[in-house]
């Protein structure tokens, strides 16, 4: 017979190929982490004696069912709301004990006293689209973040971070505990300077 033994295929490089694939999968499988806007809902039990808040300390944003915005009773475009919110929060119109030393606003007496008192109230209709609602939320959070970034930069210039970056570092489970310990008081100070008082209104009781 003229049958010749066929030469054996060299399988020596099989391991290399398999390793290559393995490393490829290891690197490319990013475990998808969700991200979004964090909010805290108010507790259900109503305060018997709700604190009295001055009208000028409330910044009312209403989104109606046609997805139109009404800010402080004036119609507004979504792109302008961030600036309007910053002006309101940073106004610092308070006198004496309520004076805000770090605010850079217009000190308009008809607007908010100081950032600690300023409340943004966001109201929506049942037919408002969720997309637009999130866009408005995003812009309002952006206003807070922008102010916090500004103050963080001027208070801790040698860190080279913004507030958002510092906060991200802080909540990242991979950061070392030493770094977290250092960042924590700074973040807390900033959060106290511009507390995020964003109230999502209760559904109106009238049906």
């Amino acid at each position, binding site marked *: 017979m003229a049958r010749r033994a066929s030469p054996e295929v060299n399988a020596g490089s099989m391991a290399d190929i398999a390793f290559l694939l*393995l490393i490829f999968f290891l690197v490319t499988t990013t475990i998808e982490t969700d991200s979004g806007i964090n909010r805290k809902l108010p507790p259900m039990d109503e305060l018997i004696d709700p604190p009295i808040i001055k009208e000028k300390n409330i910044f009312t944003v209403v989104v109606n069912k046609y997805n139109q915005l009404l800010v402080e009773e004036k119609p507004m475009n*979504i792109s302008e709301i961030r600036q309007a919110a910053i002006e309101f929060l940073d106004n610092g119109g308070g006198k004496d004990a309520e004076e805000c030393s770090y605010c850079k606003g217009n000190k308009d007496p008809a607007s908010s006293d100081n950032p600690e008192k300023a409340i943004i109230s966001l109201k929506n209709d*049942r037919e408002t689209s969720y997309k637009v609602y999130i866009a408005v939320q995003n812009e309002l959070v952006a206003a807070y973040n922008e102010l916090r970034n500004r103050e963080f930069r001027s208070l801790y210039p040698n860190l080279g971070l913004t507030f958002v970056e510092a906060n991200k570092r802080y909540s990242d489970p991979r950061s070392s505990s030493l770094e977290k310990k250092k960042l924590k008081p700074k973040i807390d100070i900033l959060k106290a300077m511009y507390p995020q008082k964003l109230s999502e209104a209760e559904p109106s009781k009238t049906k």
Partner: protein
Amino acid sequence: MSKFKKKKNSELPAVNTASLPDIVFMLLFFFMVATVMRDNTLMVTNSLPAANQIQKLDKKDRVMYIYAGKPSSRYKDKYGTQARIQLNDKFASVSEVAAFVLAERASKRQELQNVLTTALKIDGETNMGLITDIKQELRKVNALKINYTTRVGEYSQNID
């Protein structure tokens, strides 16, 4: 010199690496199979709205998910086109949200029960009415930490 020669003769045979590919393939298949991330099959359309002022939701064991949106095309005939809530693998009504949260909470470890976050994965086209109802239900069971899950993007993508 003879010492060296002797050694040469009794040289150990090379370690057989023929099974190395098998081991590596085993690892490879393990990773390929184990990296299936989504644990709920989506029954609703779920194109999330865009936002850029977002925070990450780390620590998956502290999160429970509530999906909402219009039923996806397979379920349209049966469930209509109105936006609905999906809990686990089932469509649910608003009144079932509270029970779901309590059940989820009970299934978590004791020390995590007070730090749970509810991730609201809601389709961008949903009306706020449904979301307000969900929020009211969450407040009833004291699940106050929520997260509007979004994708990364400019807010302007939300406005047509």
